[in-house]
């Protein structure tokens, strides 16, 4: 049975660093990273606490309620 056409456009909400972020359904992690203003190779990403490699972001469709984290290098001891 075919999905109703409206399902594809129902927005989802993901948490980015704990902040809610509305996205179109089916949005990829790569698209979110771009939307957030990060150069693709400037951040590392995780979804729901699991690492998602840069090469996999375009294939990783986000789901409603996902927790997304982007990390950058900082000073450290």
């Amino acid at each position: 049975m075919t999905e109703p056409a409206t399902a594809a456009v129902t927005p989802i909400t993901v948490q980015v660093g704990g902040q809610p972020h509305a996205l179109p359904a089916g949005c990829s992690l790569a698209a979110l990273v771009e939307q957030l203003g990060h150069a693709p190779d400037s951040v590392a990403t995780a979804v729901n606490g699991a690492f998602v490699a840069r090469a996999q972001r375009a294939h990783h469709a986000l789901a409603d309620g996902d927790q997304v984290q982007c990390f950058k290098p900082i000073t450290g001891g």
Partner: protein
Amino acid sequence: MTDSHTPPDEATWLLADVPLRSRFLLGTAGYPSPQVLQQAIAASGTGVVTVGLKRELAGDGSGAQGAFMDIIRASGARLLPNTAGCRSAREAVTLAHMARELLGTHWIKLEVVGDEHTLQPDPFELVAAATQLVRDGFEVFPYCTDDLVSCQRLLDAGCRILMPWGAPIGSGQGLLNPWALRTLRARLPGVTLIVDAGLGAPSHAAQAMELGFDAVLLNSAVAQAGDPVRMAAAFAHAVRGGWLGHAAGLIAAQDMAVASTPVGGRPFDL
């Protein structure tokens, strides 16, 4: 011209198969400015610097962090990213994979804290994370306590390097338990041992090296010094001095005086 008093193997040592000249590993956090950090790295002579990872919300272009990484890259030092802030093996494994992708190194300073007050490493989560990360191809540098048995479990997990604390992070107390560190050195003779955390003064670093440790790693004692650049140089001298002292063979301590001048008794029989 070769200095006849220079041990032939002093120039380099191997850290995870990588030849290094300095036995001083330096942290990069908490310096008064990026310029001071840059100068401190140079003054330390270090070949390895630690970095962390931080969660970001929105993109900030290159910005301050971009400048920081430029300084680090320009120093020529190898990067040792850490998993600071992690409280479980799962978190640490995820962060390690992120660090490897971002920074292009399979070296990871594994930190899993088990107590908020002392920031004491959690030995159980540490072993679990180390086991997974070694399987995933990482060179794991675990920040651990000086407990011999948990150190042995980390070796069983595949670690080749151990980084026991001298004292709690940032406390500057020096080596709180020299006996435990000496015991680690004696029981694990072929393992690369690095004292990490708690050092406050150059003499603490010298003491660690005199115990036979391979290197020291520190941050706050330099970054928060009145003159971080000069302190970096002071630690570099202390690390080298302590290592040379150990290599030269320290005399055994005695309870009583032992005369050093061979006068053969009293100078006058009056």
